[in-house]
């Protein structure tokens, strides 16, 4: 069985994230890492592999992004993925969801459509939660998204998830696209052994030409959406902070709420 895990390289959410002059996300000037939410996807892929010990299961980490994005793929290898594919091409810079999903889909077809494509629930920078659905659409596969519990038997997959108003059980037959939430279980840390082993694992770098995508199908200039402006949120003006002493806190709080007409 083959599993492809989509891992994105994102700017650290605790760093000072910002935009470039062309309104694309600065992915180079800010420390980046494997999107934390994709660690859960890698974890679930590895658990599946462990559960299916009697089969040959290959986990391939797939990453689309600039040169530094190789770090995200490498982290997946350190956690235990078997190999990694990095799609790297200058023309990709500034791609929107449509182009990113195209590159991912074409790369997956190039690797060979696996039984399972596993994604995180959202990237921590764009946080659209749309790439898994777009991938499924492009690959003509079912999507089973936002899983918190995953069970599989043979080619059957069942997941549990929290939807808006209910808890659901969803079922589908492989091949399919799966996305997992941060409720699916802590992701493992790379062990020392894992870090050493990762150095010897295959890391393939593919260009757009390698996966059969034309340069003019992707990138900022052909994006189906265009950013007109980005503005930093003005810092909130310092609020009033009181120390509670013998009940003064509750009085002040109630006063404040009343003054703002919340009571």
């Amino acid at each position, binding site marked *: 069985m083959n599993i492809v895990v989509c891992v994105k390289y994102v700017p650290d*959410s*605790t760093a000072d*994230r*910002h*935009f470039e002059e062309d309104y694309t996300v600065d992915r180079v000037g800010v420390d980046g890492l494997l999107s934390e939410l994709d660690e859960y996807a890698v974890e679930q892929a590895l658990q599946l592999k462990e559960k299916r010990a009697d089969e040959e299961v290959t986990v391939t980490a797939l990453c689309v992004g600039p040169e530094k994005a190789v770090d995200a793929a490498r982290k997946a290898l350190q956690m235990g993925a078997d190999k990694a594919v990095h799609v790297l091409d200058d023309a990709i810079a500034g791609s929107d*969801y*449509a182009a990113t999903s195209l590159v991912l889909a074409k790369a997956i077809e190039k690797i060979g459509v696996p039984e399972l494509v596993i994604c995180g629930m*959202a990237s921590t*920078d764009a*946080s*659209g939660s*749309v*790439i898994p*659905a*777009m991938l499924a*659409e492009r690959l003509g*596969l*079912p*999507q*089973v*998204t*936002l899983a*918190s519990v995953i069970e599989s038997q043979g080619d059957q997959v069942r997941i549990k998830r929290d*939807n*808006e*108003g*209910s*808890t*659901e*059980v*969803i*079922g*589908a037959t492989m091949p*399919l696209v799966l996305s997992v*939430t*941060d409720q699916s279980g802590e992701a493992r840390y790379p062990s020392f052994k894992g870090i050493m082993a990762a150095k010897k694992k295959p890391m393939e770098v593919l260009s757009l030409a390698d996966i059969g995508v034309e340069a003019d199908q992707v990138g900022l200039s052909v*994006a*189906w*959406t265009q950013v*007109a402006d*980005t*503005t*930093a*949120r003005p810092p*909130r003006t310092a*609020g*009033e*902070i*009181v*120390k*509670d002493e013998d009940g003064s*806190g*509750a009085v*002040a*709080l*109630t006063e*404040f*709420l009343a003054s703002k007409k*919340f*009571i």
Partner: protein
Amino acid sequence: MSEVLVVIDHAEGEVKKPTYELLTIARRLGEPSAVFFGAPAQGDPVAEKVKKYGAEKVYVIDDAELKGYLVAPKAEALQQLVEKTSPAAVLIPSTFEGKEVAARLAIKTGSGLITDAVDVQEGPVTTQSVFAGNYTVTAKVTQGTPIITVKPNSAAPEETEGAAAVEAFAVTISDVAKTAQIIAAQPRQSTGRPELTEAAIVVSGGRGTGGNFEPIEQFADSLGAAVGASRAAVDSGWMPHAFQVGQTGKTVSPQLYVANGISGAIQHRAGMQTSKTIVAVNKDEEAPIFELVDFGVVGDLHTVLPAATEQVTQRKG
């Protein structure tokens, strides 16, 4: 004027407030046509409701054949409606389901997609709040039909009478769309409190509650508020995940957000930073949440909240 398709957010025909916000926004872009996925018998009562917010047409798509599956059939249905109506835009509620329907629809129709808009103006030009609310981005769609998912509380619903002409729209759903099946669904029990994402006031608790949410719930009830929680509180099993506010929970943008025993991690901020007024109760004066607040109390939530609850209740008397 071109039609603007608005997908109705509802549960069993109970229309939810974001629908009225979307209809209000749609009027800035063209003529609102509401799209109802549901039982045909509910079409007329639903039309009566959206009529009040200016829906000129109501397309009723019988969901008998769709509802047992995840989003793919809905996306196919919308594609067929888009082909028929050539709308100026498609507005979809920014729920996870809504975003996935939009994602598939965007690829199917070769259209640009903008997710999680907090405002949409003529153009359409959208506003999004990104990087945990630290930036606002304005954008537009440059190809195909603008497909925009809109967050709750993005507009104040404005009433105006529409024609609300009901039209049954027959769709054909392919077999490949019916491959991810909903095997079971267990509706969550209602708490009787307002919906978290729609509430005007949200009172949240974190690890600082120590697992006792009673002071949070009682304070919330005194204000008529929804209850929220941090991931730490959810991970500890104190509150169900549906109550989580933040990056991997709900984004809320209420008039008032009260964070109690919550430190204010970036992932929590991502879900509440755009609230109009922010209040915190935390016993650590160094807690990062205080950087965000309009008003803060350094104190123990277990004493401050019960006392405040009593005073609020008295004032409301």
